[in-house]
């Protein structure tokens, strides 16, 4: 009531600073991680090193962007690791059989990924099987199909493949370009198109979305196609850098991909997340991993430190969200 009382409501500078810090916690942690490793090994701050980080993050990052679509609907896609393997493999066979060039191969890989995603979608949408089980089954099915095709042997691509993977346009490595294009496209789709907004609506309230006239089946199915196509592209771009596809490629990557998306703010319960978040999540994890390599940390300790840094990032994010929730609590009385 009293004007004096009102003035004491003004927050102290330290509180303001803390608030500011928490609001941008992810970026601050990012910065802190880069600086920390930069001090450990100044070479880490060289543009080439940081470029490498982004380039290597593109692999998990591209798939994580696709995964974000799925997570937004409250689903999950465990089959991405197998798609990363199978789709480029199919592309490889097609390239060999029809003498296709690398760009055509890339298209084949993405299409193959889309088809694999459509298989997931079929079971999830038409038959109502829960996504966890469907994609767990296809995780085995897809990899099994690949090992059956190859008898587990590696697949060697023509040398042009590597030329493509290691190429750069205007000094920017191709994988980074692909990553950027996918991120931008996903961002536009998610935030600017009817389809994107319907994904958010679906994740928020599936029944409500159905009532509102959203074609729930189509939207729900599409996200699995997007996820698999992204995983296929991610796999293809990475394989292009090596030129050889091993039978174990992509195994267990589903957890890395989901982790990157979740670290980027996506919720496993749907409705929350963004393409940009997936980019940040994947890049942050890769920064930590490569920073540890630069710093020359003992191999046995690297994963432990990696875990701790991710933990701190997630912790900061949780505190930030709590802070935001508190500040959003409605202020009835005019403050200050």
């Amino acid at each position, binding site marked *: 009531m009293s004007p004096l009382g009102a003035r004491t409501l003004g927050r102290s500078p330290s509180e303001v600073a803390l608030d500011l810090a928490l609001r941008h916690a992810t970026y601050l942690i990012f910065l802190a991680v880069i600086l920390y490793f930069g001090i450990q090994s100044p070479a880490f701050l060289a543009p080439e090193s940081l470029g490498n980080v982004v380039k*290597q993050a593109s692999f998990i990052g591209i798939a994580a962007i696709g995964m974000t679509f799925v997570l937004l609907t409250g689903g999950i896609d465990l089959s991405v690791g197998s798609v990363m393997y199978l789709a480029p493999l199919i592309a490889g066979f097609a390239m060999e059989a029809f003498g296709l060039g690398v760009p055509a191969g890339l298209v084949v890989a993405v299409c193959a990924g889309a088809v694999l995603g459509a298989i997931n979608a079929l079971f999830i949408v*038409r038959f109502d099987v829960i996504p966890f089980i469907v994609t767990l089954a296809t995780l085995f099915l897809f990899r099994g199909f690949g090992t059956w095709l190859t008898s*587990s042997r590696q697949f060697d691509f023509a040398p042009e493949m590597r030329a493509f993977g290691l190429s750069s346009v205007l000094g920017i490595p191709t994988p980074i370009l692909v990553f950027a294009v996918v991120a931008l496209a996903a961002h536009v789709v998610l935030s600017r198109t009817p389809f994107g907004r319907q994904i958010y609506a679906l994740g928020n309230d599936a029944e409500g979305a159905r009532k509102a006239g959203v074609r729930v089946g189509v939207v729900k199915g599409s996200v699995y196609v997007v996820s698999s196509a992204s995983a296929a592209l991610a796999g293809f771009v990475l394989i292009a850098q090596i030129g050889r596809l*091993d039978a*174990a490629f992509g195994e267990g990557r589903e957890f890395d991909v989901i982790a990157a998306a979740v670290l980027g703010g996506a919720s496993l319960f749907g409705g929350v997340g963004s393409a940009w978040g997936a980019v940040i999540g994947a890049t942050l994890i890769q920064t930590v991993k*490569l920073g540890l390599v630069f710093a020359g940390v003992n191999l046995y300790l690297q994963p432990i430190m990696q875990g701790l840094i991710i933990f701190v990032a997630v912790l900061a994010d949780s505190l930030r969200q709590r802070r935001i929730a508190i500040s959003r609590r409605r202020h009835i009385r005019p403050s200050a």
Partner: protein
Amino acid sequence: MTRTKLLAAAATAALIGVGSAGGAQAATICFAFQDLETEFWIAGHKAITTTLTEAGHTVIERNANEDANRQFEQVRDCIAQGVDGIILIPQDGESAVTIVAEAQDNDVPIAVFNRPPSDLSRGIVVVADNAAIAEQAVDYLVEEALAAAPAGETLTPLIVVGDLGDPNAVGRKEGFYAAIEKHADRFATPIEVASEWDAATALANLEAAVTANPDIDLLFTSSDFLFPTIRSVLEPRGMWKRRGEEGHVLMGGLDGDATACQLIKEGYVDATGVQDLYFEAESAMDAILAAIEAGEAQPNQVIEDPGFALTAANLGEREMDMWGCVLLSEGFLRN
């Protein structure tokens, strides 16, 4: 309701399909291996299955996917199926001991192939010493490096380490260190790069390591299957050069696969440690077949595969002793 029916039909069809896929046959030899993910294991797998099948035996395959527990269960399932003998590529020496004991307690003869049990006293054991073979290969690299470098210069070695959960990877790392430490005064602390036996991880980590330490004199990979990955990192940096060319990095690996053979021939790679895959496979098969014939339930025998390093220097004489070169000559890499 029609959809419900469709569902029922699909589910039944799938089950029946599975059923008919499993037409059971009288089994004779159970071949339980830990994984099938690199050329080495695939070649070994092929050698054993085709040889035995062609000789009229039945092979029951079990892939443990790098899970010792699963392997233990699989071997017990084999025993329950009443196989006559077991050929085992164990996940590691410790689980091998347990599995050998399990088989012998159930009166099934067992031969262990490639990865020796920690206790060599039981079972037919074909031994190859990963550490010793790795050491031989790195020894060659070290000699070459020291010969080429001006006296007093400190050299920087790098090792691409395998999955730390895999004892094979650890053995190879130990062999590498043993060779380097013989000349500790001439070498800087080796740079270790984790690969987790995964090409994508190796690519990322090696690239970072090479960016952080551009002056590498010697590179050893714990498995030959990573050479294509290494090429992708070194080539753009002008470090992928043939022997004799300016900027050649001395390079070695282990396994002796077809890619390594080709690269040694082309001059990019200098040495690789070789396990005599065909010798090992054959000895294991022969011994187990002999034991079955003789009705021996607990055969114990140690067969050693000394292994060797195929190097640029001995390429001429020993090429065809390396399984990878045999595969290469058969056109393996044309895919």
